[in-house]
């Protein structure tokens, strides 16, 4: 019998942020996003309980393999595709917290097809927990090394026309009234990995207006392999390179979703998103924005930007008064 109980898999619909310990940060956040009525591609998490069973046995336990295979089969059945491509992504318990982003340090396998490949990717994710870069990052932030655990997200792949990331406040100025979107053709991995200069959009949350848009020359894109598992890089067709990878209506919709997610969590978010060929927007991941939130907390500890005065017009005195430079 197992010392630790708990199911091997948990479906997104059944989990929320409180399940961080059993499904990891990413998995918990995806469950929570569905609560915020955001379109998240369907999927499940292979739990930390399954990971511990794996770690104890040193090999993939049959019961875990069976549960994961059943979960994958259900995703295939729902989608009507026997070899449904899925994303297999690590979801460590220390990851995606409000204080540290851990972004990109754990493994992600895109467009994985077939039960055997899914189980293989799962084990690679588990192995990545001990990767050097991840260990170094954790120790710098004083995340305790003992008992690291990991969930693994298995989720239907969106075949995106365009994808990217968005911040629900300006990463440059910290302005909380704008959403900043980076977008390029194909999978978001080209944007996250910095392999393409994406289109950049700044959208005002209050007025819904696109405040700035910078359309870049997007040389390449990442696309899923037509057959088998994995992705490849290819040049964008010339007519797409300098065309905006998002429509204004899509930007507005993204902004609305970003604002909703931010309100749901009560803090600024760093969101990965994708738009499929039919223009449906999916959210692939959301985690708290860390840089400006930390600065805000520091600033708030000192004093507010402005405090109320005995008489409202006294604000005008400081405006006309001597200027501190």
């Amino acid at each position, binding site marked *: 019998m197992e010392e630790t109980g708990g199911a091997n898999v948990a479906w997104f619909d059944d989990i929320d942020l409180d399940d961080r310990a059993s499904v990891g940060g990413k998995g918990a956040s995806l469950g929570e996003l569905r609560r915020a009525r955001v379109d998240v591609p369907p999927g499940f998490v292979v739990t930390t309980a399954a990971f511990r069973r794996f770690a104890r046995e040193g090999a993939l336990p049959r019961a875990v393999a069976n549960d994961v295979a059943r979960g994958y089969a259900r995703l295939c059945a729902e989608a009507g595709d026997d070899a449904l491509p899925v994303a297999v992504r690590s979801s460590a318990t220390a990851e995606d917290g409000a204080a540290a982003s851990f972004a990109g340090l754990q493994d992600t396998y895109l467009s994985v097809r077939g039960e055997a490949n899914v189980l293989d990717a799962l084990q690679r994710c588990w192995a990545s927990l001990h990767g050097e870069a991840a260990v170094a990052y954790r120790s710098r932030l004083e995340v305790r090394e003992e008992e690291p655990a990991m969930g693994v997200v298995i989720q239907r792949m969106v075949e995106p026309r365009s994808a990217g990331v968005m911040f629900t406040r300006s990463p440059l100025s*910290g*302005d909380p009234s704008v959403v900043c979107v980076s977008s390029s053709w194909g999978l978001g991995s080209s944007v996250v990995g910095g392999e393409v200069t994406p289109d950049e959009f700044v959208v005002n949350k209050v007025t819904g207006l696109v405040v700035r848009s910078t359309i870049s020359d997007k040389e390449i894109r990442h696309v899923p392999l037509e057959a088998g598992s994995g992705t490849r890089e290819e040049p964008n067709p010339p007519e797409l390179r300098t065309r905006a990878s998002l429509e204004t209506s899509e930007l507005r919709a993204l902004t609305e979703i970003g604002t909703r997610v931010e309100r749901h969590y009560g803090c600024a978010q760093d969101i990965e998103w994708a738009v499929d060929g039919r223009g449906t927007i999916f959210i692939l991941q959301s985690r708290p924005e860390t840089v400006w939130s930390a600065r*805000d907390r520091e600033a708030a500890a000192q004093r507010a930007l402005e405090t109320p005065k005995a*008489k409202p017009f006294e604000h005008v005195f400081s405006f006309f008064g*001597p200027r501190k430079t």
Partner: protein
Amino acid sequence: MATQTTTFPLPSEVAAVPGTEGSDMYPYFTRVAPGDDERFWFYNGMHFPEPIPAFDAITAEAPYMSLGAYNTRVFAIPTVLGIDHRIINGRVYISAVPVTDPAEIERRLAVFQERAGYYFSNWDRLYAQWNQKIAQLLADIAAIDVPTLPEFDEAAVVTEGRGIAQNFYLLERFHTCIEAMLKMWQYHFEFLVLGYGAYLTFFEFCKKAFPEISVQTMARMVAGVDTLMMRPDDELKKLAALAVECGVESAFVTGRSAQEILGDLSGRNGRAHVWLEAFEKAREPWFNISTGDGFYHHHRNWNDDLSLPFSALVDYVADVRAGKSLARPTERLKEERERISSEYRALLASDDERAAFDQMLGLCHLVFPYVEDHKFYCENWIATAFFNKVREFGGLLARHGFFADTEDVFTLHHSEVGLALTDLALSWASGSPPRGPDHWPAIVAERKRVLAAYAEWAPPPALGPVPEGIADPLLLMLWGITSDQLRAWAEPAGEGNELRGFGASPGIVEGIAHVVRGVDEISSIREGEILVCPVTAPSWAPVFGKIKAAVSDIGGAMSHAAIVAREYGLPAVVGTGHATKRIVTGQRLRVDGTSGIVTILD
């Protein structure tokens, strides 16, 4: 030190337009002085988009006399005194006088806090008083009775033992007239700097909290929806609806003059008289709006020149017949304003910040009625009434042969008109012919020639060394002058196909440009064109119903035109510096009112 790449000509380097050398059209104190080369000047094209006739120099003298007095002497604004002006080739250049000594700033701050605090604390009472003073001033101007200088003075001079003959009143009433204009401008600035101070304080806070916020968004939070300046246009819309209601819409035919339409209506039976009565009622006071912005004598009001309101009426009547609703969606605009404010408020980081935001925005709403409504009384009603009164004196001088036409009076400085009237008063007294008919006609002709030559001159947007940063908040607020703006202006005109200005009203459209240099040309604008102009005046509002977008050389995001453009949902870019020089009528343009970029597509 940053490398100074921005350069404008020095004031002393600006040559007189050929053929105008040595012109004495403007007073000596408006000429370039030694030391001016060390100061930064910019062309006040917002208020003076055309060369100014000598008489109209009063609309530079009077406001700077008053603005400076309030800043420097009355409220003691700590960091800035008044504004100096120079008239160069007929254009008004201005330069603010900053206070830089920290000890002096502190000393002024103490006085400022006491005096400005008093005005803010008693705002409503003092503003009610202001409205009474303005009503009195309007009555005083209307009561100025220009003497006719008959052969024998009135009998009452004898029977009442007045002891004063009519030639005295000729001079006294002209002085009263000039004083009324000076007084109007005094009242104009009584609250204005404090009002703008409230705006700027709020704007500065918003920019700190929301670094990417646009001025237009902040402006939307403070802007009022029901202001007097909107009323004249609203009255036209009501009259258009009434025309259809009364069944007289067939009188409003495109191409007909106001006189033809009114003639047609007065010859009709039925309910035409209902419309005519409503029309007469709307004229006072709402047709006392200037077709310009009150800075030039030829900016007549709608009552003087019915062509603008009637051309708009014809369009509005067509809209009503087509079933279009003309009413401004005031409730929706108010709701939108509340929504934007409350959403920004919610994005603030703390309750303290929200409380400060509420105080600052509340202060803006306190001052807004004055900031918006004073324009109707001052620049529109009183300014046009003043110029009309001057016309009466001009008519008297023309009748006595001083010059050929009543309007010629405006080629003379008001001090020169005073001299001409003194001449006339002496001549009436002595019984000898006045000397003026031999003196003034040559001067009038020369002034007209010089003014026409000035009109061909392209004034540089600024003169002298550019300061490191524009520290004066008033320049930013009133004229939209920023360091970035200056850098953009310094770029040689004619290169590239882009112009940058302030995005004053969001949206992107493409269309055909129609360049309009003065108010007399605005009736030529056709449906769906993009208006390109030196500056848009408030009373141009009816034209906004026709155009697709607006582009101006000068102006800030709080200008009335920007507010109107936002209400009409038209993209507008203001303060481009060169638009009327770079763009020609008929070119295709893309106007991006969000980013403030105008692209010439041809």
